[in-house]
């Protein structure tokens, strides 16, 4: 039966994380924005409090009885992120245990791998100096030598790269074989040959470390390959193999979209408060065409925010109910990414010098939100994926 309200348990989840966000995250927002790269020790406590849910981002696996639906771990994750990232998205990303690599391990890992690494703090290493969105073109290599894989290459833009204790690394078994030969590997930090070489200075999410990591003859156990070692030889198999790697994104895009929902809610709440102090309030009593410019713009932003939020919930609901959601994951990421950018920036403008000042957090919300329309697939990559699906185009037809 059609119902787009959250289940009681997720309303409760949201209320709880909002408490944490308000009292244990937000107070440190500016501090760690200023002190880029310093370790946000205060977040350890928050990490512990939400740790139970974190160690298994898939949540408790609920199986739907015939003819019924579940609201499970995916829904819980995005709802939790709405709240945590209302607190601070940079601090959330820098929080011990929040690595995107965990999602990959939980999505495609074996039972043993989940057991061993599911609870670790796992960062994701995909991007290379010469390869961004074109992730099929990576150059980092993995060669099997006896019972070990030997990794060589350089990774950049690794979120939590320094603080994490595990890395999920994309590497190719044979670059001449293209996409099909790309596999992901679990590397424990501290493994000889794996070294953090640099930390980026960024526009926003400064509380989160973004690292460059090099692999020089880095040896890891054979069992640390995520998925199958076989390289498909036919076109169909190749497509399927890379699809498996890309599937990870179906799980990580709705959460990133959820972060944009959280940050933009924070900006809207703060702006509405500052505007209310000047007598500008939103009553939803008159049509936008009969309102003043500021009220009309707030209305439009509230509508856009609500719409983006529902797309995120739909993608998560589909994942919970095992419906293929690549299209919906990209749709929600595209919409929430751009809405998040738009709202946070407009809020800076509407509040004028208060918005631009570092005395409030509005300018920080705008800077923080920019990355959410970039990582886990830029706006344009999401549009490309949606377009290919909707128009039934191959990647060679629609480049």
């Amino acid at each position, binding site marked *: 039966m*059609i119902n787009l309200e959250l289940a009681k348990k997720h309303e409760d989840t949201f209320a709880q994380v909002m408490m944490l966000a308000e009292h244990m995250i937000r107070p440190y927002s500016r501090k760690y924005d200023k002190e880029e790269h310093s370790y946000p020790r205060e977040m350890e406590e928050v990490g512990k409090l939400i740790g139970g849910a974190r160690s298994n981002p898939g949540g408790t696996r609920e199986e739907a009885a015939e003819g019924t639906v*579940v609201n499970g771990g995916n*829904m819980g994750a995005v709802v939790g992120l709405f709240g945590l990232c209302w607190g601070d998205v940079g601090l959330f990303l820098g929080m011990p245990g929040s690595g995107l690599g965990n999602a990959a391990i939980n999505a495609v890992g074996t039972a043993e791998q989940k057991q061993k690494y599911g609870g670790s703090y796992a960062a994701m290493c995909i991007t290379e100096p010469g390869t961004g969105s074109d992730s099929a073109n990576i150059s980092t290599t993995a060669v099997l030598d006896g019972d070990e894989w030997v990794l060589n290459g350089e990774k950049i833009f690794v979120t939590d790269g320094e603080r994490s204790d595990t890395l999920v690394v994309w590497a190719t078994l044979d670059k001449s074989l293209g996409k099909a030969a790309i596999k992901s590997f679990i590397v424990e930090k501290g493994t000889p040959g794996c070294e953090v070489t640099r930390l980026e200075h960024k526009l926003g999410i400064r509380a989160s470390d973004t690292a460059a990591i090099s692999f020089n003859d880095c040896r890891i156990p054979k069992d640390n390959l995520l998925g199958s070692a076989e390289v498909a030889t036919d076109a169909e198999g190749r497509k399927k193999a890379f699809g498996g790697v890309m599937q990870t994104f179906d799980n990580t895009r709705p959460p990133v979209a959820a972060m944009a929902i959280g940050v933009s809610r924070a900006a809207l709440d703060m702006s509405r408060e500052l505007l209310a102090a000047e007598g500008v309030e939103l009553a939803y009593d008159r049509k936008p065409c009969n309102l003043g410019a500021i009220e009309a713009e707030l209305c439009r932003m509230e509508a856009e925010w609500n*719409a983006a939020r529902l797309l995120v919930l*739909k993608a998560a609901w589909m994942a919970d109910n095992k419906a293929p959601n690549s299209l919906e994951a990209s749709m929600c990421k595209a919409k929430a990414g751009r809405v998040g950018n738009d709202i946070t920036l407009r809020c800076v403008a509407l509040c004028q010098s208060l918005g631009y000042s570092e005395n409030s957090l509005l300018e920080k919300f705008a800077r923080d939100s920019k990355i959410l329309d970039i990582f886990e697939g830029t706006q344009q990559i999401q549009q490309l994926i949606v377009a290919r699906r*909707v*128009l039934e185009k191959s990647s060679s037809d629609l480049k």
Partner: protein
Amino acid sequence: MTDTAHDLLFDLTLTDEQRMNRESMQRFAAAEMRKQGKDVDEGTVPARDFYPKSAELGLALLPIPEALGGAGVERSPTSNALILEDLAHGDMSLALGSVSPMGFVNTLLDQGSEAQREKYLPLFCTGDFKAATTALLEPRATFEPSAPAATARAGGKGYILSGAKSMVPLGMDADLVLVAARLDSGDNAAFIIEGTPTGMTRTEESNMGLLGAQLATLTFDSVELPADALLGDGAFNLQRFVDLSRIAVCALAVGTCQAVLDYVKPYVNERVAFGEPISNRQSVAFMVADIAIELEAMRLMTWRAAARAEQGLDFHEQAYLAKVFCAEHAMKIGTDGVQLLGGHGFCREHPVEMWYRNLRAADTLEGVASV
């Protein structure tokens, strides 16, 4: 309407009944509405010829209690929104006309008195199309649905109604019209008008679009109404009426935008320029992607407001925001539909220019087709 604790799961699954209903609506829309809508728009066929056929859908009699001759199906704003979406996929203006009697019936069920239900509802249960409608909009800039300027003062045998209503669907033919007006006390009220009493004038409108909905301006020059023409006990919940209508307008926009998407997809895949389909270009493909994304968001906003109304939760804010969102994006999608077909889209050989004109009304329409 309360925010009572409820523990339903987030769910987008249609009930079996809704699924079956959708199939028959979609069949009817494809067979009886798509071509007719275009013909009516071009003036080659009068809309009047279509409406008797729409009676076979039984939309108005569904929620009427069995005791009054109806089907006694519990009124569902969500199911109604789905119906509107599917009919609008056939043609937005004929859909609006088809569901206007249902909007009248729903408002009577919602806010009418027992006597009014008993008097009027059996008229919708004969199997024939009964033209009835609701009238809220007024012909002036800055009109606000929550504050109609039409007045009804006590006088004669009951009330004297003065004012004008615009964009009234089926406005020329409707035997029963529910008119929103303001009482001397300043309170809002609604009146049931039967036929065309002295002082009431019906003028067929000529608008940018929605030609099949038979939109008309109704003027009331000191029209005497009996006391029992006043809807319910007199305390008309105008906000609720407007909000239920907003869900309907959103659903009409969703269905029409889906028609745009379904039409442009094969077009851009087949149209060749510079040696390949234009959909191989990102600038074209991304427009289509954005239509798909915003349309899905429009649908979810509409469903959410409808589901809240159905559950008895406060749904004013969600209906308001759904309308704001759907109105803006419907216009964008209508515009992009024309743009994607280029010069061909501008020509009436294709339906996209009609959808552009019809979708422009999503922002303006208020007080019609309450779900």
